[in-house]
């Protein structure tokens, strides 16, 4: 009886805050000898509380940083590190896509080939850390 009560209370409190959905996690194959790779994904925040992707790690990368490519008004591409992380406002989606925000994997320990999956640990300000699988594919 007590167990049933607890189960009902826990499931009733579930969802909403901090329940981010991460989808379409992918990266390009890394050109031979390339020292850096980019990973892309969609991070949806269905709750009302905003969250931030603070950092990431991966066993295949020496270091992982969060970056954004920005095209200025003269068609010059500038990449800058997002040291404050990537915000995911409540009820919105942070899109990490080519030409924009991405997770930068620095110091690859092997060439990434199509079909393989890379595990990346994501750390958030609010939500619990989670592991995601990044699929390596051509576009």
């Amino acid at each position, binding site marked *: 009886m007590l167990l049933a009560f607890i189960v009902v209370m826990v499931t009733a409190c579930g969802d909403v805050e901090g329940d981010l959905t991460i989808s379409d996690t992918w990266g*390009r*194959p890394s*050109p*031979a*000898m*390339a*020292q*850096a*790779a*980019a990973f892309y994904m969609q991070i949806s925040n269905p709750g009302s509380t905003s969250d931030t992707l603070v950092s990431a790690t991966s066993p295949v990368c*020496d*270091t992982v*940083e969060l*970056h954004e*490519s920005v*095209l200025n008004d*003269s*068609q*010059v*591409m*500038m*990449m*800058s*590190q997002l040291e404050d992380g990537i915000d995911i406002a409540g009820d919105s989606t942070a899109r990490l896509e*080519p*030409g924009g925000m*991405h997770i*930068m*994997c*620095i*110091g690859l320990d092997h060439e990434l080939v199509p079909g393989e999956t890379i595990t990346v640990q994501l750390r958030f300000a609010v939500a619990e850390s989670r592991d995601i699988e990044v699929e390596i594919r*051509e*576009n």
Partner: protein
Amino acid sequence: MTDHEPATPRQRLWPLAVTGVVAGAIVVALLAPILRPHVFHGAVLQSDSPAPPVNLTTTNGANLDLSSYEGEVVVLYFGYTFCPDVCPTTLADVARAKRQLNSDEVNVIMITVDPARDTPELLANYVTSFDPSFLGAYGTDEVTAEAAALYGVFYEAREGSEATGYLVDHTATLMVIDTEGRLKLLLPFGVSANEIAADLEALLN
């Protein structure tokens, strides 16, 4: 209610005229894609002079001679191998466009704006992983700066983190040289593989 009167010649012709106009409009609409000139997806230049020559070496070990590609198109891109997002995205799109066209007459050359880190070997491995036919081109800092200036390309090293070392901001535009060796088309970053293929095809025909 009046008796139905016999139709006048004008009344008989009216439906015929309308049908004729509609049929004509349909024919024009169907033919329009063939009759209309190709619309390029970037800035089109009309230069009388050949594309500016550059003093760079290709990953084939030869001097890059842009005048030797007559009858074929050349796609030049200024980038560097440490760039994980924009450069691979662009080169992957160009590679896809080339495969779509299935053409031997599309020559893609990435000029490195980071000759200090991009050794010829690294550069060669990098470009050929997008397509085995792709070439890299490199030179001294001076020669690289000269080449960039000739093509209106800006690039500048900027401090990154300890992990990345410096990053290089650079113009992300594709420079396309036509079959007569003239700089013809500037494609901005973000143009799709399909659009690149359509534009290259228009230049080849």
